[in-house]
């Protein structure tokens, strides 16, 4: 009985650890490739209405670290980006994709990206 109890506990513990490890894996789970183009689309739309001078975004993923982007996107603090009218209508899925793009290409990521 005791052996059975121990085995079951071990299995449950193993599953819990694996499950938490999955959550603990770094970064948001959005489509970062799609997020890149969604981000550019925001600025193209904003430039058309005169919200910004150029359609090329001024802020690049490599401008901050992964930790800094995590704080900005988890608190939805997009003031720095400007074009608030365009950001406010973005669905959560698009914001997650943009967050993934910034996080995965931050200055301390394996492949930092800048907007040209």
């Amino acid at each position: 009985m005791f052996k059975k109890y121990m085995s079951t506990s071990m299995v449950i513990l193993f599953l819990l650890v694996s499950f938490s490890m999955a959550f603990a894996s770094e970064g948001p789970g959005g489509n970062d490739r799609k997020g890149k183009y969604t981000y550019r689309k925001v600025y193209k739309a904003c430039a058309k209405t005169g919200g910004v001078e150029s359609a090329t975004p001024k802020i690049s993923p490599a401008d901050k670290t992964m930790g800094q982007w995590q704080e900005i996107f988890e608190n939805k603090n997009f003031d720095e980006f400007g074009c608030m009218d365009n950001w406010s209508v973005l669905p959560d899925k698009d914001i997650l994709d943009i967050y993934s793009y910034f996080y995965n290409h931050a200055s301390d990521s394996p492949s930092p990206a800048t907007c040209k």
Partner: protein
Amino acid sequence: MKQRYLPKVFMALIVISSLLFSFQSAFASTPKIEDEALGRTLARQAVKDNKRWSTIDHSKIDALNKDFKTGEEITKACISCHSEAATQFHKTIHWTWLASGDKKDIRYGKAGYSVNNFCISGNAMEDKGCLSCHTSWNKKGVEGDVNCLKCHNDSGFNFNEALGDIKAFLEDGDPDTNEIATDLQQEVKEAVSQVTFPTRKNCGDCHFKGGGGDGVKHGDLDTSLTKPNRMLDVHMGTDGKNFTCTRCHTTVDHHIAGRIYTNPAVETRKSLIEDDLAPKITCVSCHSDEPHKNDSKMNDHTNVVSCQACHIPEYARVNPTMMWWDWTKAGKMKNGKPYIEKGPFGKPVYKSIKGEFKWEKNVKPEYFWSNGSQTSTTINDVIDPAKVVKVSHPVGDKNDPESRIFPFKIHRGKQPYDKVNKKLLAPMLSGEKGYWETFDMNKAIEHGNKTLGIPYSGEFDYVETTYAFPITHMVAPKENALNCNQCHIRKNSRLANITGLYMPGRDKSSLMDTIGWLSVFGALAGVLLHGIGRFFTRNGKEE
């Protein structure tokens, strides 16, 4: 009495006539204000009617109006008309990365045994980190297809990124990303049609940023030359003649004129007057070898001093350039992670993956004799680690009629060498086994040397090295050319290390000075003695 004074009057008349004649001649030889130096007249003639004309608008060509999915498809479209372009290009150094036309001769070239004291080696194109500057699609090197757009497109569009994204979006089956892919393909189509002869930006995207960043390597080639003014470069200034690189680096069958490692750009200098088919790569071709005004002493220098020596007083005049790279310092961590430290000019002075750097701006060149060729120490050459190893250094001599005193940037550094075999080493930098991942220099060297088939003893150390770059761009306007007294001066002459020849103003001979002064005082003493003697021995002969 009249007879006594007649000779004196006659002598006086001769002296006055001579003075008047000389005075008139002096005025007569003064150049008119509108007279121009020969070099300028010839150069103006050489670039007259510089406008290009074309018989094609590439946006109207059906082969280019397609929804491209890959770069290879684009190249196929290009060579559907330009049928021989790829074949021609495959025989050039921009494709092979080898100096020799014989693919078996891998002595010199990024894909061969050549090294530098920056990122050191291309490891036979195995180091994929270098291949972003290879003219193939998707860093495939010579295994891939020619990327014509790298040189022949001025849209500034990132084709590699866009085509990679198009492929991924079309494969993931998401209607949203399919829509993005369709928009992207339209952008690619619009950008592809902007076909052009190479612009400064096309060449500069690689040649301004060699060594890992803007201005790292050459000193006279950086992004400030994309849109320079005349003050930075009189030839390329957008407010002047706005020359592209290929205006001087002329091209035949995609072979672009210029020095290739040990092979000089030209064997002899010729002006277009002497030979209208002469390469335009040298100053002499357009400006002739007597480019200054007729009565100018500067024309007497042109068989000894290069044009560049006087007309490029400093390099890196807008953006700084790297002067030192010490690999011995690489590998330090902060909190267990690699880091970057920035210094003056906002440039990195330390990177864990590379070591320690120093940068400078407005740099005075160092001068050496040069006949246009340079030595090249490869990883297959034995070195003396007790001395500074000259990885690349000018070849020339004061007795060589083709040699001139030429300005150079000398980049200094420390890089690894084989302690047993006494040869420079070629560590792999990027990729799984590269130093930038493992921070294990020994393993990186093992892997890197293997790509080139050069044995490694397993023991390495570091040696100090130099690498010379000729300074030939960033030609300043003539009013900023060097003054005579920047070379012809006793102390701090720019040519202090050019020895074995006499330079007035810089050099002195104590023996000649002594003889000279003795002669001067001797003559003065002689005149005085003669005069005194005449005075005291006149014996009342005058009335």
